[in-house]
């Protein structure tokens, strides 16, 4: 017989999983409250879509008290692409200043990671760092990895062996992150890149994973990097898309109307950004539009 293990009574904990607000009520509504704790959420997007903006904003909103949807927590930011956007973080911190006496940047711990081996090496140090922070004013309750794809894309070739080794590491890293998430009640946000889809809906690359039949960004079909193996390692997947929109504004008066037929159609180019829920155990198929301003990332009601 085995040693006794006690099951959790589901009624012992609050009946809603704790979530961290992303700093905007519209986006929060789309996400059912924000980024959930005790699981891994993945943010997939091509470069320039706003992944890092999102992550930076999350490290600031995490510091808000739970009355404002935050976790009253510090964050650990592991970045794999250089340099760390310090200036932008400073700029954003003016919007999300929870109180005037503390500098929000003091509660964001940044660590650069350049390879998978290094990440595995520092995991125990990360764990003890988080444990030690539990007594401080704002314990660490958010880990951001920006981006996980960058770690894997250079070290591995496209051979069967390397792909198998890579899969092995996905599950190992994901297992460690999830164990920490459960142990310390952390929210984990991991960003991922995209690859172009040569033939949509064909072969394993075109395999549909989640609510959207095919993901589009910049007007072309793409799919998240790292394949099906990594998709099995995350609990929720969010997709940020960006597309150029051409808006025609008709019949604008030109030159003060002199000359009679002085009206022209203006064509404006506008970037339309959307957040989609690709899959999540607690969310329906939702999406919302957002924009990136100097103050931060905010949802747009249309």
């Amino acid at each position, binding site marked *: *017989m085995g040693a006794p293990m006690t099951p*959790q009574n589901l009624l012992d904990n609050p*009946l809603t999983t704790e979530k961290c607000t992303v700093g905007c009520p519209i986006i929060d509504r789309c996400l059912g409250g924000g980024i959930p704790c005790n699981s891994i959420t993945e943010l997939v997007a091509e470069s320039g879509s706003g992944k890092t903006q999102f992550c930076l904003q999350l490290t600031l909103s995490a510091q808000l008290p739970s009355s404002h949807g935050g976790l009253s927590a510090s964050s650990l930011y592991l970045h794999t692409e250089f340099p760390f956007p310090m200036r932008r973080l400073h700029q954003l911190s003016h919007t999300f200043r929870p109180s005037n006496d503390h500098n929000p940047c003091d509660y964001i711990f940044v660590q650069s990671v350049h390879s998978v081996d290094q990440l595995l090496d520092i995991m125990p140090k990360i764990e003890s760092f988080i444990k030690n922070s539990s007594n401080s004013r704002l314990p660490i309750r958010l880990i951001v990895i920006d981006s996980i794809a960058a770690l894997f894309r250079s070290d591995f070739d496209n051979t069967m062996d390397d792909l198998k080794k890579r899969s092995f590491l*996905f599950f190992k890293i994901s297992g460690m992150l999830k164990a920490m998430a459960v142990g310390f009640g952390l929210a984990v946000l991991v960003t991922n890149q995209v690859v172009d889809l040569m033939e949509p809906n064909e072969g394993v690359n075109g395999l549909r994973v989640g609510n959207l039949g095919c993901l589009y960004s910049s007007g072309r079909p793409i799919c998240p990097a790292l394949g099906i193996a990594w998709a099995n390692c995350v609990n929720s997947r969010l997709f940020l898309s960006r597309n150029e929109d051409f808006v025609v504004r008709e019949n604008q008066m030109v030159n003060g109307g002199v000359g009679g037929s002085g009206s022209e159609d203006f064509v404006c180019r506008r970037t339309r950004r959307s957040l989609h829920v690709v899959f999540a155990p*607690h969310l329906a198929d939702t999406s919302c539009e957002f924009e990136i301003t100097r103050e931060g990332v905010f949802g747009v009601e249309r």
Partner: protein
Amino acid sequence: MEVSKLPISATQRGKLISAGYTSLSSICSASSSDISRGTQTAWDMLQEEQESLARITTSCADLDNILGGGIGCREVTEIGGVPGIGKTQLGIQLAVNVQIPVEFGGLGGKAIYIDTEGSFMVERALQIAEACVEDMLEYNRFLRNDCQVKTQPKDILENIFYFRICSYTEQSAVINYLDKFVSEHKDVKVVIIDSIAFHFRHGFVDLALRTRVLSGIALKLMNLAKKFSLAVVLLNQVTTKYTEGSFQLCLALGDSWSHCCTNRLILYWNSNERHAYIDKSPYLRSASASYSVTSRGIRNSTSRSKRIKMMI
């Protein structure tokens, strides 16, 4: 005449004596039922099975149809599919539906939910439980007014024994512990493991060892199902296999594992709809059905096209 004096080989003699036959007359008077102690006739087995005809509904009539009424007890059903297809949703639905009282056609049992990935969200389970209670009240209103619906959504949550497992050793430990746990909680009628694959996809450099460990687990779960007449549901992930020059999608954990379960159900996407098909079963016909995941849980798909396809 003494057995020791019979003209037979030493091994045969030894076996007869250790079985308790010391003289020729004792062998002659042994009846066939004495000798075949521990075996059962097929008729007896059928009688036993008829007793446990209850199946756990999935709340989707089409899915129930291809499953012969729902997920069966005394057997292990494996359910696999790509991320986001609804495996966890189906797992939670079964953990709720097993609790439907006998008066409403359910098993009135409890559930064990072993979560290895962290996809079980309490608010989603509560949502599904609330919809189940609402459905029961609705059923009551239209058909039978004599049964009271005494179950509350929170009671449903309380009857799910939830284990969160963070490593393969914890997983093995909890599976070993199940026998003791279920003998102390005889009303458990379903054990769901979500997912069986996650912790086994790393940590084993020796794949032959992994196969042995998995076979051991499969055996324990099968014995558990038969001993306590409960249903075991294992959720599995997908991976790609390079066969015949191309990459094919298949369930994780390898070929040997695919033999371990009684039934196998594969969930997949087909033109914007979720489908399920019976990939392996000793008694269910190969067929596929569509289903949908709604805010109330697993339900029939809303498309009007033919929903169940039989494969000849």
